[in-house]
């Protein structure tokens, strides 16, 4: 699945888009920590279909996933 990266997380990863295989949110988190250096020390949220998700849920691969660093609007 496509994972969109933003702000400081895109900077750490060196790309704004990652291809990741994961069948659940927890598996996705594990994969992201492997792929993005220093992510485990950063504050971030994961959005699934443009909604911030906490906890666990299955993923089919058709979702729009985004990794969001702290917001800074305004």
């Amino acid at each position, binding site marked *: 699945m496509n994972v969109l990266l933003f*702000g*400081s997380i895109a900077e750490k990863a060196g790309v704004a888009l990652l291809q990741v295989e994961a069948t659940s949110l927890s598996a996705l988190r594990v994969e992201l920590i492997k792929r993005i250096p220093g992510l485990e020390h950063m504050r971030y949220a994961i959005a699934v279909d443009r909604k911030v998700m906490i906890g666990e849920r299955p993923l089919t691969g058709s979702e729009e996933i*985004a990794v*969001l660093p*702290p917001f800074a609007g305004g």
Partner: protein
Amino acid sequence: MSDGRPHKVKDIFVEGAIPASFIAENIAKHATRTDIGAHEIFLGQVRADVVPSVQDGRVQAIEFTAYREMALERMTIIREEAFTKWPAMTCLHVHHSLGCIKAGELCFMVFASAPHRIQAREAVAWVVDRIKAELPIFGREILSDASHVWKTNS
């Protein structure tokens, strides 16, 4: 002035700083709506913060980026909630800058109009707080020595 009503996704993002003249024009456009008795406007300006972790570090500019689709979806929900909470509100206009905005320039506008001041005043304060907390907008603060830090809303 139907463009200020809820229920459709409006693009709040503008490339570059918000010119003061744009705000004046926005005020002027409301002159035909004689049911309005109060405008309340919040303007966000880029502040030249001192960054203590960097020697002589001072913010020169903020480069804003956003997860547009999610931001616009969240904004539509916030707008609809605002019109539910303050049904007398006549209209609500929101603009946020993307790209590089220098210290002293305007990057954010929330403009509410209503028959009376209380609705407009309360709605603007509430909408500003919701936007800062919920819209996926990111800010790269560019410092005097060309290094950068990432802005985080408290």
